[in-house]
């Protein structure tokens, strides 16, 4: 297990908090809490070690595109980049209304 922390510039605060996903094989849960700091702060706890660079790239791409400000807690059980992006998108979708 590995814990990774990232921070990305973001200027669109989420309207409300959101929780999606499950910490189950090939999946992850995302807890998103709105923050007005102008950043997206991401903490990843992942069951698979050594993928720091992949996480950085996946998250960088996502937040370059969506720029949602808030705290993101990701509890991961070996999700693929596609699943990670899907769950993040669901979280910001749910946090919009």
């Amino acid at each position: 297990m590995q814990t990774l922390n990232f921070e990305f510039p973001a200027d669109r605060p989420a309207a409300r908090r959101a929780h999606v996903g499950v910490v189950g094989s090939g999946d992850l849960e995302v807890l998103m809490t709105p923050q007005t700091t102008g950043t997206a702060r991401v903490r990843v706890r992942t069951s698979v070690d050594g993928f720091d660079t992949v996480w950085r790239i996946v998250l960088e791409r996502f937040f370059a595109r969506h720029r949602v400000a808030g705290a993101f807690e990701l509890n991961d059980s070996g999700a693929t980049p596609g699943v990670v992006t899907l769950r993040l998108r669901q979280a910001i979708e749910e946090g919009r209304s």
Partner: protein
Amino acid sequence: MTSPAPTGNGHTNGQTNGQTGWNAMLARVGFIELDARARAAALLDDGTARELCGPFDRIESPWLEPQDVVPASDDGVVVVRGRLDGRPAVVIAIEQAFQGGGIGEVSGVKIAASLSLAARDTREGAPTVAVLLLETGGVRLQEANLGLATVAEVCSALLELRALQPVVGVIAGSMGCFGGMSIAAGLCSTLIMTREGRLGLNGPQVIESEAGVAEFDASDPTLIWAIDGGAQRTGTGLADVLVLDDVAAVRSAVIEAAGRGAPGEHRSRRLRESRTRLDAVDPADPPEPADLAAVWARAVPAEGDRR
């Protein structure tokens, strides 16, 4: 078992009693495919669900991270209060995807404390039924002795509530209900299963590993379903209601069970019946699983609907 009456809120009856219409089959919404949170929400009346100790309370297991295991924000148990056909209820759903639904310190106490609070409310004049969605391999071995302790606490709290209000167990599939939590299943007022649900104390792999492949071949699905499967368990009276894997069918079976109140004598108290059944089987020459229901029916003459 009789078919549950339609609930009048748009849910259709989907009992697997051979009379299921094509329309019901086509309108089916799978219950098994839902995660624990969605299952709990699907059972409760629309707009009444309120989750307690949810993800944002972040009450995680303190024992997993030190063992390099990623924790879950709800520790794999979802507790939701709400109404069930108007009746105050708490639905407690175990998330099978997280650690195989294994019961640890936090998840176990979430279940036990919820059952105790429902019992307290009932004693204080606000009857509250409980629904347990049981998909679990039993005690979470990463928390070993504390998991074992909390399973005992779950059983105790379940019995405390069961004396006052129905505790309805549902084993929908696909993990099934094994280990210590199968004992909790055995204590429920009513146990509802689908054909895809499984119930047993020791899972097939555990038996194979402890006693050898000749004792139990865990790679033989026919054997597993013949012994642990929902059809067998309801057919032999170790579970009560067999339902289709359909949200509406599961919901209406749960509502019926909750409305029926406590059975006259709970299964785990029917010792004479259990004794007769055990004595009716020669351990040196046991019946085939498919014949067990008939053997037991001969041993214990039907008493009609015991409830």
